[in-house]
């Protein structure tokens, strides 16, 4: 999955042949096209990252935009030694955390709880909808950090080391927790849907 770091590529070649890191370096030197190319590669992935983690599509779009804005703003801070993918998802994760913090504060002080994600209403035409609903529910029942690990591994396809870097935990912890999280997820997915619903409503009352 990783881009191969092919040094033989010349900087002047078409954007498609250059590595992410080369593109980022070019952007740091002032090439707006390089960032466009990076967006072409990761725009959908970053949108997906947020789409699976927040309730509605508009918010996901806004956060994805914020992530790229952060990369534009903080371009001077990127070091060529770091893999662009982990850098990107590190920023995306920080943007997500900041959003959650803000939403939490808003919910705390205004007392207005954002309604829980019901993707069915807005994305009824999407193909992965029904499966997505059940999966989202199952994944949502995992502990927060376990959920992040599963998502980062399954959808963002980060390596264990990259997950460890993004979440700021040791690699060994990632391995053992990810394993447990997946086993727990398997149980949740095989459990009858009614059961899950019952548990959820019970949780809501608690």
């Amino acid at each position, binding site marked *: 999955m990783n881009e191969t770091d092919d040094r033989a590529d010349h900087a002047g070649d078409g954007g498609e042949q250059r590595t992410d890191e080369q593109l980022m370096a070019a952007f740091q030197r002032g090439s*707006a096209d390089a*960032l*466009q190319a990076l*967006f072409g590669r990761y*725009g*959908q992935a970053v*949108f*997906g990252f947020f*789409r*699976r*983690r*927040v*309730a509605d*599509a508009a918010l*996901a*779009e806004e956060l*994805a*935009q914020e992530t*790229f*804005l952060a990369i*534009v*703003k903080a371009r001077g801070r990127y070091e060529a030694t770091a893999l662009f993918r982990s850098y990107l998802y590190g920023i995306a994760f920080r943007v997500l955390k900041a959003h*959650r913090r803000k*939403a*939490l504060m808003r*919910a*705390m002080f205004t*007392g207005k*709880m*954002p*309604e*829980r*994600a019901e993707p069915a209403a807005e*994305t009824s035409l*999407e*193909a*992965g909808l029904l*499966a*997505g609903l059940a*999966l*989202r529910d199952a*994944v*949502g029942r995992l502990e927060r950090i376990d959920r992040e690990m*599963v998502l980062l*591994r*399954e*959808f963002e396809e980060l*390596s*264990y080391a990259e997950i460890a870097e993004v979440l700021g935990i040791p690699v060994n912890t990632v*391995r*053992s927790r*990810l*394993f447990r999280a*997946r*086993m727990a*997820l*398997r*149980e949740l*997915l095989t459990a009858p849907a009614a059961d899950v619903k019952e548990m959820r409503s019970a*949780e809501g009352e608690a």
Partner: protein
Amino acid sequence: MKAMENATHAVPPEEVMAYLDGGLGMEDAVAVAAHLRECAECAALAEELGGVSRELRAWTVGVAPASLQREVRRAVRGNARARRRRRVGRRVWVWGGAIAGIAVVAGLLMLPTKPQHKRLASLPEQREMLDLARPDESIVQSRNAGVAGMESDNRNFAALSQIAPGAAAPTPPPTSMKADRFRGGVERVDTNPRRPMIARTASLTVLVKNVVDARAALEAAMTREQGYAAQLTFNTPDDGARSLQASLRVPAEQLDSALHALRELGRVEEESQSGEEVTAEHADLVARLTNAREEEARLRALLAQRTGKIEDVLQVEEEIARVRGEIEQMEAGQKGLEHRVDFASVDLKLVEEYAAKLGSPAEGTGTTLRNALVAGLRNARASLLGLLVFVEEYGPILVIWGALLGIPGWLVWRRYRRARASVG
């Protein structure tokens, strides 16, 4: 969870997962692949894990809206400036607020320490304070202020009884000049002289290794500082620390250096200094003395000029004797006062570090054990009682505070939990 039970496998289940995720090195990957061919259980595990991943794949999201790309393109062109400015403004507010908060907290912390600071003022400052305030209201009353003047010391009294008492002290004390001025026949006493007369006292407790050595050092120091011991008590109890108690007199000018020398004797356990202003008292005494002397002179003149009845002469002589007695009494008081000003008094206590002797007679084993048991029971009762007393004393207030803080805290916590659950 089948897989968890199989700790005896050659390949741990996490390794199987890592293999599926492509997170293993070549060698490990080959080993796991070989194991999976042989071990049905691990193969089943791999199948389960793969199933989870496949199921999750079904969770797709829609295509990112085109507006996202438009916005990002605009941002790259540098249209994010307005947004950035807003951020910077907010940061300024945050920092300003934090600094203001720290300043307020620091100010609050500093407030109560101010008066304490004054109380610990150094001696020169104390003197200044003495200039302004009456002695009684400013400084801790020195407990031996009265004693100092009474201690008789012939050497110094003899010197002070001369017309010019300046010869007594190492440096001419300012009091003698004042005394001369008052003697010049001024009836109304100047109650605000230039330099105040202050009787200084100090007390010092020092822990020393050896009292005998310390005593030798003390005497050496006294010789050097031209001081002397008015009184000295040496205590050597059988089963306790030896100690030495001395009441020292040191020329006022040498007090600081003498105290310094005394502190060097060992570890200072306690030290205090105080001063008593006696200017007014002294001035009053001098004025009364002048009046009495004048009266005496008048009476003598009367006796020399007049020749009257024998009764009258006797009465005048009687009067002269009375005045003479008063004069002498007042002169003694004046000298005592001046002595107290010229010589500071130091209460010194030297205590030896006590080392118990091995040979001291001990009580029997049975008695020791019994006493310990009694003490233990007493301690248990005291601690239980203490707990009970604490509950009685602070229980109600704890309940009140618990309700005052706990209920809102619990409400906030519940709200936080709900908000967190809804944020996801």
